[in-house]
């Protein structure tokens, strides 16, 4: 144990750099994913056919094994940080898109009618009624995406994008437990903390009226 601590002290620069790369890579990908998937999800409500098409495309991307997707990216985009980010971005789309779409569709028609009755425009209806109600579910999508992406960002090491996966791969190649742990522990912690913080945020954005029922959403 004390050996491991001194190992970490000795390699602290490498571990910190790798952690920061990992954070940029995964948060950047999820941020980009959310910036596309949320507007797309909003646009897709009421467009049944297009919605099914988009969901099945993103679903298929999600199905493709990560090493294979990194493999596809390599000949097209080359190696490094950017291609890895693109692959992770593609993976982040499905949970966010699906949750945005289904939560907006799930808003009770009575509430929408009430809004219309009050003379709201479509835009007002979206901003003041639909989005606030859908927000907790959208946040769940972002949380699930983030946890997955943090875990998958370890594969970015395969195409030279750095991150904590680098330490793990080095550990595997040299059969060195400390290197593996120095990559694995921060990754797991990062996933746990991110999940926890986003979970808190999810509860905070739940409209008070919905909180009373204590509805658990997944």
């Amino acid at each position, binding site marked *: 144990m004390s050996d491991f601590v001194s190992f970490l002290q000795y390699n602290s620069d490498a571990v910190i750099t790798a952690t920061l790369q990992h954070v940029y890579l995964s948060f950047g990908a999820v941020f980009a994913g959310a910036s596309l998937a949320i507007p797309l999800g909003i646009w897709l409500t009421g467009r049944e056919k297009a919605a099914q098409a988009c969901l099945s495309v993103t679903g298929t991307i999600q199905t493709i094994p*990560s090493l294979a997707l990194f*493999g596809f990216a390599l000949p097209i985009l080359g190696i490094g940080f950017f291609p890895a980010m693109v692959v992770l971005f593609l993976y982040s789309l499905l949970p966010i898109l699906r949750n945005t779409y289904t939560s907006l569709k799930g808003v009770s028609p009575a509430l929408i009618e009430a809004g219309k009755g009050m003379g709201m425009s479509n835009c007002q209806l979206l901003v003041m009624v639909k989005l606030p109600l859908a927000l907790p579910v959208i946040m769940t999508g972002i949380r699930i995406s983030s946890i997955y992406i943090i875990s998958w960002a370890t594969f970015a090491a395969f195409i030279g994008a750095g991150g904590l996966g680098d330490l793990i791969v080095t550990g595997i190649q040299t059969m060195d437990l400390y290197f593996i742990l120095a990559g694995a522990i921060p990754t*797991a912690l990062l996933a746990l903390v991110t999940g926890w913080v986003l979970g808190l945020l999810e509860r905070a954005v739940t409209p008070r009226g919905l909180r009373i029922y204590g509805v658990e959403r997944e």
Partner: protein
Amino acid sequence: MDNILLLTIEHLELSAVGVLLAMAVGIPLGIIITRYRLAAGITMAVTDILQTVPALAMLALLMMVFGLGDTTLVISLVLYSLLPIVRNTYAGILGIDKGLVEAGRGMGMTRLQLLRLVQLPIALPVILAGIRVALVTAIGIATIGVLIGAGGLGSPIWRGIQQTDAVLILSGAVPAALLAIVCDVGLERLERAMTPRGLRATAHR
């Protein structure tokens, strides 16, 4: 070409063995914990934590214990497949309309009959959905098995990446992607086919 076919079969075998073993443990476990609330909480927490460990790290750590090779890969596939299978079995059985279970009891069914004749058939589509998620994930994780010396389609991809040989990469990546998609679609069909007819009718309404 032959080689790719062999690798694809090997890949499917490794993933399927992992998922089958997880089913052998996970389905009975999921059924048992529906009776004990505390055990359910503990099991879910443990499988949840297993899931947060990144796949690459899990493989690496297991490699330190079990050494290089297929066995280590299969062990990690079992650990990863447990969560969706246990969770869906548990949720599938608990989610059944209380009225139906009561009706069964009222007809004088024993616990075992209730399980076999009422609970399992109704929960089956949900359990299958868990197995589908587990298998697709397993096919994905099996591709990185190459790093710990396991077989399968990961090896052409990995060699291709190291030699920056696009053709070699694609010769592994394309069948791996197709295998995952085919398994996903196939099991989804099965899921729909296994939905009891009475439930399918309500779904259409």
